[in-house]
């Protein structure tokens, strides 16, 4: 069902503030932003960190879908082009050499996409650890856990930074560092963690942003090439032929045309990552508001809309 995949904001919050327990989750989310958040209210701080962790989780899930689609689009475009151009190669050896080389290059790309996905999932774990650290009853060992997750993120990022995709080096697209000051939090373990690593984590989210900038442009080209071949084969040629059109012709034409438009908005993932980074800085500065979270959710839904339309245009053969 179209758009059923969209994230509802009502699911994005679980308030633990006792005096607000009777309110709906949406109210809690709204309150998290509308009320000034101070270090004096432990439950509000908890809500703020939980909201961010949930937005981060939603982002990682949606970005995983985009990464899958980027991989699918690369393979499908290459397969369609290979099938279309196969008769251009004269001998079995030429054809074998071509497809082996293409497989090797596609494997490299899929590996990079997988590393970007792993990097995102580790960030999600880090956000969840931060949310747990915001709880005054959190065990002291959580600080060590945060360090462990951060170390894993750090081990992955050089490979992503130095990689190229679609003609652009990911490193060249990392946005400039944001200058921010970690606020004082009553839970000392949390404050220490943020002071130790929040600037580095902001850079890791910036790396995701850069990766999705690069992925978006490659995805756009792969989708356009794939959809053009499908448009020629499924829409134009059957229409041009002096034969009856299959019943599926009209719906198929619509799917392809809609997906062509969706392909040009492949930059939604990059917007969502930018909003996640802004919200992380706001969280650390103790000023995360409902509009920040709403902004992430809107951007995530745009990512999901894009992938839904692309999936709709993929025939189920």
């Amino acid at each position, binding site marked *: 069902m179209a758009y059923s995949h969209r994230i509802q904001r009502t699911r994005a919050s679980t308030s633990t503030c006792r005096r607000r327990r009777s309110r709906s989750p949406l109210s809690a989310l709204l309150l998290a932003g509308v009320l000034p958040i101070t270090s004096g209210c432990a439950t509000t701080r908890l809500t703020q960190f939980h909201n961010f962790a949930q937005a981060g989780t939603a982002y990682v899930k949606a970005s995983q879908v985009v990464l899958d689609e980027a991989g699918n689009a690369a393979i499908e475009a290459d397969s369609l082009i290979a099938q279309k151009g196969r*008769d*251009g190669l004269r001998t079995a050896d030429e054809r074998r050499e071509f497809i082996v080389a293409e497989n090797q290059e596609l494997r490299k790309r899929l590996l990079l996409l997988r590393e970007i996905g792993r990097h995102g999932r580790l960030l999600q774990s880090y956000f969840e650890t931060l949310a747990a650290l915001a709880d005054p009853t959190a065990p002291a060992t959580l600080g060590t856990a945060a360090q462990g997750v951060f170390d894993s993120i750090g081990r992955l990022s050089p490979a992503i930074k130095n990689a190229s995709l679609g003609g*652009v080096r990911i490193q060249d697209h990392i946005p400039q560092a944001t200058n921010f000051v970690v606020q004082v939090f009553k839970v000392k373990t949390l404050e220490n963690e943020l002071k130790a690593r929040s600037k580095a984590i902001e850079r890791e989210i910036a790396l995701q942003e850069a990766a999705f900038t690069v992925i978006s442009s490659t995805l756009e080209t792969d989708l356009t090439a794939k959809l*053009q071949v499908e448009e*020629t084969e499924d829409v134009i040629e059957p229409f041009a032929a002096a034969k009856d059109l299959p019943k599926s012709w009209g719906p198929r034409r619509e799917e392809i045309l809609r997906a062509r438009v969706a392909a040009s908005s492949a930059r939604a993932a990059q917007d969502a990552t930018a909003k996640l980074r802004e919200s992380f800085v706001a969280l650390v500065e103790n000023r995360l508001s409902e509009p920040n979270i709403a902004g992430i959710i809107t951007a995530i839904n745009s990512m999901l809309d894009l992938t839904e339309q692309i999936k709709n245009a993929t025939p189920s053969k």
Partner: protein
Amino acid sequence: MDSAQIYSATLEQLNKTVVRLTSSEWDAKVQGAPAEQRREALAELLHVQHARLVLANAALQEIAEALKANEQNLVDGQKALQGELDKLAAVQSVLNAISSFINVVARIVPLI
């Protein structure tokens, strides 16, 4: 241009070329061409797609020197190829421009 700019411009040209070669306009042109030209057009589509994938996966630092050494040929090749793709006049002229450009790219990254 620095090597990163040459790299991006070359890839962008390959992307634009693959998009043009998968378009219905080009398909219609090729269908009306003689058999040997049709075969050549299909082969060039594969060469462009392969070059695009290989170059996109290449590490810039490893090919920076080769890019710089071939800068002028790449710039000239891009200009000539884009001109042919915009006009989309004679199939053979487009194929010649693609072939020349791919030959320069093959000096930067190993192609099949």
